[in-house]
């Protein structure tokens, strides 16, 4: 073989290899682009893939799940159950910023689709927006969304690897991904105020960038998002373990700032806003959360959407979830604030070293 022949063989093999990858990815469909049925594992494992998000948006579904890592726990198939004949894609970004989620929401709406949007406290922190990793990530999502040749995203080794994992799983009838997330009824550690404080560093020592220097993005940005949404869109304030709300009231004025943002949203939108914030049967139970109460378990996602879609077959605690409106928002936020103030906070905070208990009620 001479050099010229070698190059021809190389080019031919390259072309065949690319076509093979595309064919396998299209047929196996590990990320549920054609169907979400039995694809939840892949969605659970989905860690910020701009190319896949772009592909999902270009493929045009009726609904998109937008939000932070909490949304990762939501099976799109669960919502498809309540919206027959409608396609739902999950396009969460782990650690998403408001800027990223707003960009996705705008793109989704411009395609005539609707969204179910997680209105998360720390995604609203504008002081995260200057971090290099965040800027780079935003730019990579932006450039992927502007990319016209989206079907090239089927030609992707990450997807091929997920395709093979799915095939192996089907052949061996095993679920390798189940270990990656806590099982629904398993608790690794009890949720503690101290654990949350260590996790988030809400006392603002400045080492955890997502939760330090908490300042909400400009009102105009929230108003724009709110006004662009339609009656078919849904905003959700997803639940965290109740201890978070104690610390939100104590540190950085987070509670007040977050509540102002929620009020602004509710007052300016036609979309439904569901609030799962506050002390209720779900948020005081350690067994409903992972990572010190930071992420709710997948089983809580079932309750959230059973509540939203009024599913009589699933029993949802009565105090879990409130549809907030322009009329009841003030009263609702006042109740939430009082829930924290009336909780036996002293007992909890006494577990945190060097925290003057009296300050907890300084507001």
């Amino acid at each position: 073989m001479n050099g010229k022949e070698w190059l021809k063989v190389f080019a031919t093999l390259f072309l065949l290899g690319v076509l093979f990858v595309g064919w396998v990815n299209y047929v196996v469909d590990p990320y549920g682009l054609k169907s979400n049925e039995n694809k939840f594992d892949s969605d659970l494992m989905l860690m910020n893939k701009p190319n896949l998000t772009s592909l999902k948006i270009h493929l045009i579904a009726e609904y998109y799940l937008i939000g932070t890592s909490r949304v990762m726990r939501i099976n799109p198939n669960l919502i498809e159950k309540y919206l027959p004949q409608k396609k739902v894609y999950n396009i969460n970004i782990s650690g998403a910023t408001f800027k990223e989620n707003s960009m996705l929401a705008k793109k989704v709406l411009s395609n005539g689709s609707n969204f179910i949007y997680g209105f998360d406290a720390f995604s609203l922190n504008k002081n995260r927006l200057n971090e290099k990793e965040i800027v780079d990530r935003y730019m990579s999502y932006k450039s992927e969304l502007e990319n016209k040749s989206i079907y090239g995203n089927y030609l992707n080794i990450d997807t091929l690897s997920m395709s093979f994992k799915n095939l192996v799983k089907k052949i061996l009838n095993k679920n390798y991904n189940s270990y990656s997330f806590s099982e629904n009824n398993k608790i690794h550690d009890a949720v503690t105020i101290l654990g949350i404080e260590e996790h988030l560093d809400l006392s603002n020592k400045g080492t955890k960038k997502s939760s330090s220097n908490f300042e909400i993005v400009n009102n105009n940005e929230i108003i724009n998002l709110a006004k662009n949404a339609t009656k078919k869109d849904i905003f959700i304030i997803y639940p965290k373990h109740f201890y978070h709300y104690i610390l939100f009231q104590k540190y950085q004025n987070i509670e007040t700032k977050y509540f102002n943002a929620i009020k602004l949203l509710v007052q300016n939108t036609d979309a439904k806003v569901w609030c799962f914030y506050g002390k209720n049967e779900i948020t005081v139970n350690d067994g409903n959360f992972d990572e010190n109460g930071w992420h709710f378990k997948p089983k809580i996602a079932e309750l959230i959407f059973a509540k939203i879609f009024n599913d009589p077959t699933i029993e949802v605690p009565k105090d879990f979830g409130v549809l907030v409106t322009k009329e009841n928002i003030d009263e609702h936020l006042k109740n939430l604030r009082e829930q924290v103030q009336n909780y036996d906070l002293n007992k909890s905070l006494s577990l945190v070293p060097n925290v003057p208990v009296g300050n907890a009620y300084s507001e």
Partner: protein
Amino acid sequence: MLFNFVVGNSLSKRDASKKAFSKKSILTFGIIANLALLGYFKYADFFITNFNLLSGADANLLKLVLPLAISFFTFQQIAYLVDSYRGETKEYDFLNYALFVTFFPQLIAGPIVHHKEMMPQFANARNKVKNYRNIALGLFIFSIGLFKKVVIADTFAVWATAGFDTATTLNLFEAWATSLSYTFQLYFDFSGYTDMAIGAALLFNIKLPINFNSPYKATNIQDFWRRWHITLSRFLCEYVYIPLGGNRKGEFRTYNNLLATFIIGGLWHGAGWTFVFWGFLHGVALVVHRAWSKLGFKIWTWLAWLITFNFINIAWVFFRAKEWGDAVKVLSGMVGMSGVQIHPILQNKLSFLATHGVIFAPYEAIQLPALDTLWFVFAFIIVLFFKNSMQKREVFKLDYKTALFAAFCFVVGVLSLNKVSEFLYFNF
């Protein structure tokens, strides 16, 4: 570039000694000018920070954007000036000199080349005609490099970044996975880049020098530096260690020279005390190795490899850590001070360990799924038992086997390009 061309030219002209300034003065001026530029862009904030710390002053940081690859092209041009001073270069054409400095495959992160090994190749008329064998060989090496970078290095990068930058604590296995991830990431990243540079240069019939020769097979630290970033080692040896006196001035001075050379090497990699400490550790290791060899001690090869690899792995922790606290976090995890956690996939077989305080839980702190731990086995096999790309270059044949291998690496590499990543050595 123009400045260095002019200085180099005046150094290489025979009658320079008759001019107002001696060749040595011109060389000193040239080197200081280059180092001043490097110092301004790369080290100014480091010095200001330390000055503030020591004096209690509050001088503002300059926060300059580091010009891409400044460390590389500065070293290459300093080498050119020294070679000109020694009479080893003869360059009167600025365009040729510009090509030497900016030859794109190796401009950004090396290999650091000598003027004398590049210019004859650029001048050779036979290198200006199409050579299909070299194109095939170039694609072959380039494909291997692309695969190493985007498939292997970028895979390990996720766990290294999560462990070093994101996790607050790391248990025993997470800490080892973190340090090993960076050890493999750095090797596959940098050697992958070098392979791509060598491959791309071959498309133009230009042969760049070898830069890596299976460094993790090294059985002592000196052996490691003969295999890792060979052109940097060559530079440090020729332009720092030997001018300092090398091993010509007695044993004690040799040890000092080794230590100084590697501390400078550490500082070259980055403006931070963690880099200096990394260089110091390697300098000390070379001193110990030299003393050990002088005394005639010998140990089993496998033990020598184990000690060498672990030393390198631990030293990389300081190299990678953005702050001392990150290094302490990883190292304390590696010695078990943050507990032992085993993946629940092994819980049935190892449940008796729970009574000894072992926890069974997924490695969420570094986002490492159980199945992906096989990547570490894969990486060890590749670095220890496979021929490296340069050995493959030497025995390359134009046949279906090499075409299939290259096409596989190229397909997987190209179709993995959708991730955001950058070459680690672009930062240095």
